[in-house]
């Protein structure tokens, strides 16, 4: 007689789990940066270090996550369809030719929100529910 209840709970947890794991990812900037929205290519240009300025001249300071955080892999898969090995290969080329350094890596998306809120040029990626009033959502990653 508990079976339907257990079944319902399993389905509920499965939904919740899926909800957290696949929460929509968004790109956030500092609320005072003056940037309201960005296109996918503009986001790519900033995160790959091709362009280091927002349209208004403010220096962009992207932050990234450690490889261990599954959000990192999901972000790059959604943004450019690339695996982390390809992203790391790209940065190894930039770093070892002395062209530029890879973005700062933080430990969690909570830290990203805090860092972006504290740095005028900060730009990072987080799960949508984490984006609060201290930051502004400028791009939503869609499948």
């Amino acid at each position, binding site marked *: 007689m508990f079976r339907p209840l257990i079944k319902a709970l399993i389905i509920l947890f499965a939904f919740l789990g899926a909800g957290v794991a696949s929460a929509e990812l968004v790109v956030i900037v500092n609320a005072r940066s003056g940037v309201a929205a960005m296109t996918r290519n503009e986001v790519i240009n900033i995160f790959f270090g091709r362009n*280091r300025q927002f349209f208004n001249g403010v220096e962009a300071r992207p932050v990234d996550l450690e490889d261990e955080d599954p959000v990192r892999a999901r972000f790059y898969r959604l943004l450019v369809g690339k695996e982390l090995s390809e992203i790391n*290969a790209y940065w190894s080329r930039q770093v070892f030719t002395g062209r530029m350094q890879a973005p700062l890596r933080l430990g969690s998306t909570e830290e990203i929100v805090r860092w972006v809120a504290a740095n005028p040029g900060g730009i990072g990626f987080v799960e949508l529910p984490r984006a609060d009033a201290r930051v502004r959502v400028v791009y939503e990653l869609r499948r």
Partner: protein
Amino acid sequence: MLSYEGGVSWRGRRLRIVVLMLCSLLAAGGVAADAGDSFSINGFGTLGAVRTTTDDVEFVRDLSQARGATDHWTAKTDSVLGLQANWQVNPQWQAVAQVLSRYRYDRTFRPEMAWAFVKYDPSPNISLRAGRLGTEFFMLADSRWVGYSILTVRPPGDYFWHLPFYSIHGADAALALPLGEGVLRGKVFYGLSRGNIPLAREQWDIRRSPMAGTYLEYQWGGLQVRASYANIRFRNDLPLASVLAREKGVVLPAVAADYLKTRGTRTHYYSLGMVYDKGPFQAQLMLNHIDQGTNALSDSNAGYLLLGYRLGEVTPFVGYSRVRSRNIANPSLGNAAADAVATYVIEDSRAEQSTVFAGARWDVARNVAIKAQWDGIRGESSSLFPYRKDERARWGGRMDVFSVSMDFIF
């Protein structure tokens, strides 16, 4: 411990300077870490093995290597270890030093300072560097030894082996400009070249030869297109007289020596590169033309096409590359002996071959890739320039090359 022969040789001293510089960078980083600046040490490396199907010629990665692979497996050609220190003093200033150990012109793996420079960014999209710098003669030329950053075991040889130049003592300036949804990027560099190019048992000293170059590229989404130009004015002649005397027992006539001089001549490098990299698909198309100022080396056209498609952790790839000599000099020096010697030397700079290659990269663990590759080189028996220790009488222009490698970054 790093060691050297023959007491305090110039090389030994140079190595000590390298080590000292690294140590001071390390020390500086330790102090700076307190001030909130960032200091990091990273590295890259490759363990590679390669063999061919002939011992008529020796297969090299590029002309900076004195000896190459034959029909026995060798780890010399592709193995490399690099260590880099980066000190970000503040958002504008950065210091970078890289030590590299790989098989080189003097048949050793002696570590050398590959680059050591200071970088200043007066504004976010302008970058100025000065010191010992890598040169981007052609697209991807300055990351040739970072195997982890590329799909193939080594950059396509028909395109890259005539580039033995790696670094300059000089300066460069790069400017990035957002244009539409893409970014336009330009760079200029000038400096004095470094290094030696092996020629039989001798060295062609290209140190202090002035080099200058520029490129313009546009990058939009997954597409990157670049046009580049560079030139070098050689400061020294090829060591032809001693090579001919030693290897062939032939005296180089003065009239031939003058005809074959490289000193004071300028070589021009033109290239066009296109990279398309989107999702699991990547493609590269590169073309170059080399216009030699000397009669001793023939002009050439080369190019390659590389296609790769990632399937999970494995990325199979196929490619085609080719190189052809152009405007081969026909000496007429009014002296049969001189003509014969000059012709012999000029013939040595011929490249007439095509290569089909295929392989796969397997990203086996985080920051580690394993690769296997086959190259089918199909050329003329006159194609001698790409190789070392050629047996002209036997060499038929065809060989297969088998390579395996493990690339890593840390």
